[in-house]
């Protein structure tokens, strides 16, 4: 199980704005945004792990011991050309979420909200880092990679979370799951990336940016406008 606790030296303020629900170019206190990003950087303790497994697209089976067949038509489609999968788990630890609660309690609602958003940007950034490492290693072996696909996307039920966690050996990064399949720490991400032979043409939808359009969370704060 490779471990990669990627460096986190900056946070994307625009992503933080988006996760906090600030649409477009809305003017908002840069000082508070900066403060939230700085606190997230200080409190984040990034950890990441992943494992690669062979994958049989014909039977939708991850060839682990024992076999794992994700029950998701969307994931099967996502992995239709994959012959291998990388299953990853990343987290930024629990300190940030504790701080968010404390800030709410002390009446610092705005900073709490922004810190939560910055923490989301942080964990996504850590996931991006490990993803780009997986991409590099895959490219050396002649593979392209699909986008990350996580439990809860499309029709992939989050009840698969414990299995995904186990396959990633995410407990080594300090990630656990509740009986209701929620990740602890909350700012954690698990995902599957498909490795597709360079020769086959990945369909455009798998290569493009993940779209908010396709998501059913219409009230999501971070939903992009169309």
């Amino acid at each position, binding site marked *: 199980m490779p471990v990669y606790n990627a460096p986190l030296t900056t946070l994307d303020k625009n992503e933080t704005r988006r996760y906090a*629900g600030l649409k477009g170019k809305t003017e908002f206190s840069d000082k508070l945004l900066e403060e939230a990003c700085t606190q997230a950087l200080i409190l984040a303790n990034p950890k990441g792990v992943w494992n690669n497994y062979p994958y049989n697209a014909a039977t939708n089976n991850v060839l682990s011991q024992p076999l794992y067949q994700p029950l998701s038509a969307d994931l099967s489609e996502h992995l239709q050309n994959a012959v291998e999968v990388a299953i990853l788990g990343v987290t930024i630890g629990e300190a940030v979420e504790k701080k968010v609660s404390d800030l*709410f309690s002390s009446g610092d609602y705005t900073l709490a909200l922004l810190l939560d958003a910055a923490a989301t940007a942080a964990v996504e950034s850590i996931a991006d880092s490990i993803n780009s490492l997986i991409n590099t290693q895959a490219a050396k072996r002649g593979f392209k990679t699909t986008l990350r696909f996580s439990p809860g996307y499309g029709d992939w039920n989050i009840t698969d979370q414990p299995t995904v966690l186990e396959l990633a050996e995410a407990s080594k990064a300090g990630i656990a799951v509740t009986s209701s399949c929620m990740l602890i720490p909350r700012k954690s991400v698990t995902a599957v990336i498909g490795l597709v032979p360079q020769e086959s043409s990945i369909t455009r939808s798998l290569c493009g940016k993940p779209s908010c359009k396709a998501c059913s969370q219409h009230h999501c704060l971070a939903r992009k406008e169309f």
Partner: protein
Amino acid sequence: MIYIFDGAMGTMLQENGLPPGYCPELWNVEHPEKVTAVHKRYVESGADIIETNTFGANRIKLSHYHLSEEVTKLNLAAVKAARDACGPNTKIAGSVGSTGKFIAPLGDLPFETAYNVFLEQVSALDEGGVDYISIETFLDIQEMRAALLAAKAATTKPIICQLTFSEDGRTVTGTDPATAAVILEALGADIIGANCSLGPDQFINIIKTMASHCQVPLSAQPNAGIPELINGQTSFPMGPKEFASWATKLIDAGASYIGGCCGTTPAHIKEIRAAISGHVPSHRPATISHTALASRSKVVFLGEGLPTAIIGERINPTGRKALAADIKAGNFSTIKKEALDQVKAGAHILDVNMGVPGIDQAATMRQVIGDLSLLVNVPLAIDTTDAATLEAGLRIYPGRALINSITAEPERLEEFLPLAKKYGAAILCLPIAAAGVPTSVEERLQIAGTIVNKALDAGLRTKDLLLDALVMTIAADATAAQQTLETLRQYRRTFGFPTVMGLSNISFGLPRREQINSAFYAMAIASGLDAPILNPYNQEMVDMRNAAAALLGHDPSGHHYSLTYAASAPITQTPEKNSQPNNPLSAAKQAIINGEKEAVPELIRTCLASGHTPLEITNEALTAAMNEVGVAFGKGRCYLPQVMLAAETMRAAFLTIKEAIPAHETISAGTIILATVQGDIHDLGKNIVSALLENNGFTVIDLGKDVSPDTIIQAAEKHKPDIIGLCALMTTTMPQIDETISILKKKSIPAKTIVGGAVLTAEYAEQAGADAYAPDGIAAVNIVKHLLGK
């Protein structure tokens, strides 16, 4: 002289029958003749240097085949197999590959474990009699540092260090070719270069950049293009002729060792040999001669003609009790904050001092340097008088640090200089001798000269040296400033190394120190100061630096100056201030709408002073403001953070009223119990609703997250709420909404229920028997008001 390496080994062995998944290094003992045969083909194709079949022959990689105890045997056999193929002039490079793990804290492999793993392999290769050590295909500069340090301890043979860069021109862990060249040359690599991952076309810029950042020979071993998988076989698109057509371009870029990595064959090497014969390499580009410091991902140059670099002094517990206590307690969040804030304020280098009595300073330094190396990308200066602490910091730092500082005291010279050499650090020479602090300029120069000579004797280069001009307070000696300025000028004339000094000492014991400091700063820059150590939070000092850079031509056309200050100019004019309403209630209302949390208490006090009752203020300013914000949100004219800021401001207003009139009892608009349901640990949405309701005059009993129906029932019986709000985030916890509502009904709790959360919908809410569904926090407030007929 150009040297030609060989091409790929692994794929050649597979062509000769190595089964997939079989340990290639095992063939060194099982089929040495087949390994020799591959080497021979490369020698016949014109390779000057062949690489041993030991890329994965380290303890960690071999453990995948249960061969970790065979390191020495497999490496020795590999060297022999190579030697059997050599022509009269063929040289052998012992190949050292990565462990496949990242070094802590980036990964889980302790630095010392990695060091020992490489020490073991390189010792075996050295014993076998290789001519070079080739550390190659490394993704991370820190693992490269461990391998290079180990190789230098294990052998006296020249060491080649080749990193692998991605298409963005950096290694996976963020090191660019310039930074790699600076760090590895200082650390003692004999040849620096790149191999694998990219094709030769993508290597040109990497090699060019390296050439201008170091003086050692460069090597380039690209892949035959980007691989494809065809019928399950990895295949590389670039044929021998095309590949070789890049060889002369790589040589012109600055490489003198050329070979191939994945996908290259004896045919590729043969074509390179043909392509370069008769090629007269153009002169290698000139190297930047400035002193450089580096983090993992960034180089900072210092010296004459360059903008002043600020060394941030804040990570230092001297005279700071709270910071010292944090360090002692192992709480490093203050340090992290100081690091981020100083970089934001404009620091280019951060000084790190862990001088707290009674702690294990070496261990603390190791921890802090490791943490900071993942948090900031500016280079670090290790500030200590203790050799063990210095070594702990230098060893773990994945860059080229500055040592702050080395005096002419014999013990310091003996202990610190070898460490600087070993770890490729730059040193700050502080002109203090065993006899004490010098009193004249001449004495400073003479002591500095002593340190410089000792440093050069210890093997350091002139570009490893920086000079401290030594600042004494003018309160004790009126000529102190002039002496320091003259020292700066003479340093420049005599040595030409970058100059550094702790600036603020000049004003010690005087009033309005910042005035003295900034005037002295300007004079010092004009006298040749390159890198002041100062507090970057002092905006005047940062401004002074930017102005000086424009004045001295370090900032061509004042471009950076204009960019920095043109944008900030309008701040002095805030139109809202001019249109401040006269009526105090309207002013307070507007302040809440604008989220002016700091301004609102004063405005509330004005309201009270002008005779408005708390009830009037609440209704006409506070509630009215929140209503307006709510409407704006509903219409998409403002967003959640602005609503929260208004709520926060409203809270400040409430608290001000309470403070002014402690007896004032607010009339509750109603009691609401809020809970995130059992099994659900996400409470951000619930917290937002809670904050908004509270600041709309409701009494909120917040039961928290993961709350069982029983707890909710008990709370309902106790508090007799008007409304119970339930929240669930995910499909797995959504059924708890149904469950909880049905129990509430069974127990005949009269409160109305309102539900919300990411996955919930109005339909679901209705089917679960809830009285209402709220898609967001503002809607929740409106629904609650509606349900209670407010």
